[in-house]
């Protein structure tokens, strides 16, 4: 069947127009995708809820020594670790333990918590876990080599998330401080544990030095 010339011309123009339009939409779609990756979006930001705080004596694992009370909450549950740190720390070889130390002294007795003095027999202390970024770097290098924009974007997001997780671990860590009368301190200690298998009981010993003297009080817990 012969199509009249003017109809054929009209169809050809319509087809070309639609193709141009589709192409323009595709361009717009790609631009939108790239822009949404480049512009920081708070919706994509990781959320780190604060760990709920109670009085030191309210924790199931606690100890009292004079006016000092220590309470700990062990975060053995991987889902709980994921909720508060956006990563599972136990498979990385760290057990997060939330510590609350309270000085209930009414008099002028201040105590010094020195993190470098915390001892855990059979474990190296003072280590803060670092969220690994090797996977992100590997993905990025492979993506760049393959010329994949999407792969590179995903890797960049992974690297950024990793840095956010590492930072959050730092911010939530229990730091050296002085406990004035009526003051409490709280934060996480990251205790090194085997990456695989059941963990052994942890014996935590925290010496608290009385301000301006040589006198020390040992707070000890097993969990």
């Amino acid at each position, binding site marked *: 069947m012969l199509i009249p010339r003017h109809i054929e011309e009209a169809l050809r123009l319509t087809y070309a127009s639609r193709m141009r339009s589709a192409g323009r939409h595709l361009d717009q779609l790609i631009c939108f995708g790239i822009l949404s990756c480049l512009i*920081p979006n708070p919706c994509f930001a990781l959320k780190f809820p604060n760990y709920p705080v109670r009085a030191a004596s309210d924790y199931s694992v606690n100890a009292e020594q004079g006016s000092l009370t220590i309470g700990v909450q062990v975060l053995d549950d991987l889902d709980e670790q994921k909720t508060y740190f956006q990563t599972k720390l136990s498979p990385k070889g760290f057990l997060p333990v939330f510590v609350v130390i309270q000085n209930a002294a009414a008099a002028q007795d*201040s105590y010094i918590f020195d993190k470098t003095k915390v001892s855990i027999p059979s474990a190296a202390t003072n280590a803060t876990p*670092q969220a690994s970024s090797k996977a992100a770097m590997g993905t990025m290098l492979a993506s760049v080599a393959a010329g994949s924009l999407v792969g590179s974007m995903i890797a960049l997001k992974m690297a*950024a998330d990793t*840095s956010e997780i590492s*930072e959050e671990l730092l911010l939530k860590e229990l730091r*050296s401080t*002085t406990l*004035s009368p009526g003051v409490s301190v709280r934060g996480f200690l990251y205790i090194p544990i085997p990456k695989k298998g059941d963990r052994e009981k942890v014996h935590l010993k925290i010496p608290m030095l009385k301000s*301006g003297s040589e006198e020390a009080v040992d707070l000890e817990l097993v969990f």
Partner: protein
Amino acid sequence: MMIYSRFLLVSAAAWALSAMVAYGQEPKIPLPLKASLVLTPEFCASEIRRGTFRERFAVGEAACTTLEPALKGTFSSLTVTNALPTSGNSQLVLVPRFVDAGTVIGWYLLTIRQMDVFLEWTAKDMSGKTLWLETVHGSATHDPLAKHAGEDPLMGRALLKSLIANSVKDAATQSASKMCGAPELIKVARSH
């Protein structure tokens, strides 16, 4: 509409009042103590390697130019020494130490958008007994969309340097405030 305008009026009044109070605040009275600030060459050269890409943060260099001016008004007298004083008329010896630092990177061009430093202070008396220990957190953020002159668009050496300087400056300011309010230091000041 009436309620809304009243709410605005009350908010504006509260804001104006708080601004007036802040403006009229008395400067903090320095603690009547002769303090020695120990800035050892090791401390001034201290670096922390941390972060996602194991960046090197020259925090000591920034601290050695920032700490003295920041703490000047905190004590009635402040002298800087490069070693622990064994004799002299100091009533308080202040020893700083960087314990940690970290960065948060943005996921566009891998620029650093936040820097945090943790500075630990040990305050001792002349007999060497620890009176006060505190860790101070200093933080600085960077707006990646704002333009910074002479900045390397990738890891940004100038940007990193400015973030280190600003976070250390923040830690120094926080330190002065913590020292002023520390009951243990106030107690020492009263006893002398």
